[in-house]
Each structure stands twice: as C-alpha cells, then as structure tokens.
C-alpha cells in the first residue's frame, strides 16, 4: 500500500449472515480527484462507505485513508476525513450554527471554522434559524458544511444529491468543485444518479452485486465501449459483411447499423470494407457511449464481464 492514494482498500469484504454485501473490494482513489462510486441500489455502496468510516467491522481485508490504516473501533486521530451520509445528520432543535458548533467542540477546532463553513455553503444569513425550519436543500448544504468543517483532505459523500431539485444538484456540484479546488482535497462520492457523477467525477468505480466491476478514469470507461453508427443503402447485406469480417453489431434500425469499435481509426477500416464490397455508405457517426449506456452494459444480468 502506498501513500499516494486517499483511499486504498485491499480485499475488503463484509458479510451479513450468509449475504455478502461487499466482496474483495480493491479501491484505489488517488489524492486530489473526485471519485464517483456508482452502483445500483443494494450493490454495496453504503456498506462500503460505512466500512470506510469505521462504522462497520470488515469481515476481511484492510483499509487505508490518507495513508493511515483504519482499524475498526479505533479513531484515526491523524487523518482528516469529512463525511456526509445520504440524509444529513443534524439536530433539528438547534440552529444551523449550533449544529456546526457541536462538531467543532468535539474536534476542538478554532471558532472561525463555523463561520467559514457557513459562508462556504451560503448559509450565513440563516445560521441562527432552527434547523427544523430548514428546507431539504438547506439541510443538505448544512450537512456539507458539517462534513467540511475540519477542512478535511478527504470528503466521503453517500448519495449527496438525494432529494435535491435540479438547481440544488447544480449548486452541490459547484460547492464540491470549489471545495476540491480551494482545499486541494479528494472527494469520494457514491451515487446512482449517473448524470450527476458524469458531470463532476474524474474517476469512477462501478460496484455491482458486491463486486467492483470497473475502476479508472471516466474516459477509459468510455473507451471501453464505443460505437460507430453507419447509414447504408443495403442494411441486411452490410450486417452479413460486417459479421463475416468479425465486427460486433450492437444494434440496427432502419437504414442504420451500430458496430462496436475501439478507436476512431476503426471507422476508416469499416468504411473501406463496405465500399470495397459495393455498399454505399451514406453516413458514418463515431459515438461515445454515455455513462448510462456503460453502466447498464456493465451491470446488466447477461453481461458479467469485469473491466476492473
């Protein structure tokens, strides 16, 4: 294990009775990146986060956060980790500022941290209001302020966009980008909202049925499945030619055929083959799969392949 990773797990596993919630997870989250941790509901995202935060004891494997080993039940006093769970953990009978003050006192932080955190999330004007009168978006922002209070070098967020409207989601993205930029921090973000992750994450990990299916840069994943859409005059003949030549046809509709390719130069090769066989190629459109395509491709029951 090395210190260049903000999060590093080796063979991390957790079972509940006979059910395996996390199975041999080898997470590698480089420092300074926003890492999107994707998976369908029940895939093991929340269990992974609870293991990282020391709320659950691993059945097997080990964890390092910011280079420090995490031992269950023993607080890692040196590493600075902030966390925001799916629903912010707040005291509704206290004001926004008092909620932050509770954590500030527990961590023994300077008093200025409270005002700075409130300002970061734009809640300075509402700091003296009781939290039970806050809207969901305000609570989410206060939760983020709570997570960022100690100016952590690693921020772990579990489904932070849950319940937010599109404006709130955009605001959250802006806050996270600003936090990473200003604090030079690492963000580990779990979500099942693919578009949200696609817009913010540098690297992603996809977990499905307790196992990590892919981990790497977003562009690497997108390169993992690229398509070429071809419009031709003879669809059936084209399908036969391409199949004979060993190309994988992913879908076809009237006048259009989609072929899986690995690079843009494949488009030139396909075009040449078809023209030589007398097919009139009317259009060629190289397409990058969306994260949603890739996610569904990786997590669909028929496809058990792993790219990790």
């Amino acid at each position, binding site marked *: 294990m090395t210190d260049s990773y903000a999060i590093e797990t080796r063979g991390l596993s957790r079972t509940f009775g006979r059910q395996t919630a996390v199975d041999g997870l080898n997470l590698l989250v480089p420092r300074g990146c926003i890492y999107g941790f994707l998976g369908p509901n029940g895939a093991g995202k929340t269990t992974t986060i609870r293991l990282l935060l*020391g709320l*659950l004891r691993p059945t097997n494997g080990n964890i390092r956060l910011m280079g420090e080993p995490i031992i269950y039940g023993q607080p890692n006093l040196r590493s600075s*980790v902030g966390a925001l769970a799916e629903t912010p*953990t*707040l005291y509704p*009978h206290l004001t926004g500022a008092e909620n932050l003050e509770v954590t500030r006192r527990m961590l023994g932080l300077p008093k200025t941290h409270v005002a700075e955190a409130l300002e970061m999330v734009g809640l300075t004007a509402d700091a003296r209001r009781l939290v039970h009168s806050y809207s969901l978006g305000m609570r989410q922002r206060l939760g983020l302020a709570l997570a960022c209070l100690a100016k952590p070098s690693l921020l772990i967020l579990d489904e932070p966009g849950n319940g937010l409207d599109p404006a709130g989601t955009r605001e959250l993205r802006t806050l996270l980008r600003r936090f990473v930029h200003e604090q030079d921090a690492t963000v580990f973000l779990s979500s099942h909202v693919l578009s949200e992750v696609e817009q913010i994450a540098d690297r992603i990990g996809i977990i499905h049925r307790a196992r990590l299916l892919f981990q790497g840069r977003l562009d690497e994943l997108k390169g993992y499945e690229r398509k070429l859409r071809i419009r031709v005059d003879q669809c059936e003949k084209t399908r036969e030619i391409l199949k004979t030549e060993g190309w994988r046809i992913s879908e076809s509709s009237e006048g259009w055929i989609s072929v899986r390719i690995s690079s843009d130069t494949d488009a030139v090769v396909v075009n040449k083959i078809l023209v030589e066989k007398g097919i009139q190629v009317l259009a060629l459109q190289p397409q990058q799969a969306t994260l949603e395509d890739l996610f569904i491709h990786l997590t669909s029951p028929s496809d058990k392949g792993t790219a990790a």
Partner: protein
Amino acid sequence: MMSLWRALSAEFLKLRRTLALRLAVGAPLLVVLLNFGVAIQRPGAPSSIDPFVGFAQGILTLWTLIVLPFYAALAAALMASIEFQGDNWRHILSLPIERRSIFLAKWIAGVGLLLISSIVLATGICVSTGILRLVAPAWRGLAVPVGKAFRGGILSWSAVTLLFSIQMWISLRWRSFVLGLGFGIAAILLDLVGLGRSGVSQFYPWAMPVWTIALNGSKPFLGFIGLMGAVGVTALACSNLSRREYE
C-alpha cells in the same frame, strides 16, 4: 481526557431547548408546588413531627418514589433519541474521537441533569418553607429545613445514578424510545407493588432513592452504593456500546 472534555462540552450544547433540560427544572418545581398547594390550604401544622421536616419529607418521598425514577428514565430515553432520530451516530462515531468519551460524556451530562433537578428540588423546599413561614401563622418561627432538603436531594441523587445508568445503557443500545421508557415505568411499578419494600430488596435500584431519605431507618449508604454501581454499569455500558457496530 481532552476528548472527554470536548465531548462533554458538545453534549451540554445539544441539551439546549430539549424537554430533558426543561424537565430538570420543571419536574422538581411541580412536586414542590403540589405539596406547597396542599400545605397552604391546611389550617394547622401537623403535630407529630417538626412540620417543616414533615413538609420536606412529603416532597422528598413523592420525588424519590415516583418522579425522580421516572424522570431518570425519561431523560435517558430523550437524550438517546436526540442521536437516534437523525441517525446522528453515523456522524458522531465517524469523528476522530474516542468512542468511550462520547458515551461517557452523555452519561455525565445525564447525571448532571439529575443533579440540577435535585438542587432545584432542595432549593424549592427551602423557598417554599420560607414562604409558608411568612403566610401561615402556625408555622411562624420554625427553622427552614435546609439541611434536610439538601441532604435528601444529594443522597437521592447519588442513589438514582445507578438506575439512570441502567436506563441509559438500554436507551443507547436500542433505538426504540418506548423500550427505554417502558422499561423504566415497569421497574417503577414493580417497586410500587412491593419489590423494594423489605430486606434485600432495598438494593433494588428503583427503590434505592426512597430508602436514602426514609424518615425512620434512612439508609444513606445506599447513596454510596448507587454511585459505585453507576460507575460499574457505566464502564460496562461504554465498553459494550463502543464495540458494537452501527448499521
């Protein structure tokens, strides 16, 4: 030690605007007012004992027999529910602070609330007897039972810490508010139907506070036993709660 102090400071802040804190003042005042209302309507002082001692004893008996054990159960359940309601354990236990300090701070804050209520009760007894001296001719010239009030308050407080520790363990261990409070009510009822009335049953934790202030045969050592028992139970509870997982 520093982590305990920090956790304790946070714990006192969390008590702001809570029912547990309001009842620490309200519950003993209610008991005093109730007895004061009865005493002021009584035409003469009871002749068998010093009337102010009798007045203080009436308040202390009602307090230690029912109100204090019930308040201890309620305070423990309320303090635990503050964390369970918003799933705040996930946040608190992921902070870089000793888990034992977190639970111990909660226990100390609770014991602090009980101490406040005992002091309010003792002060209430003294103030109300002072008023009775002024307004009731039969009680003029009698001494305010300051010693009786504060001795009773402190002894019953030290005895109640044991049952509070048990209540706190139950309330922190299980999420259900009703479970903690229900357990406390059932234990008080058992005491009332006679479990704590004789022999060895004086050591029944829910009976101990009333035994410390009994007019005939008061057992102040039960206060010491209560405190020692509370320390033991709290040590076990902190160890148990620190090791368990929070899903």
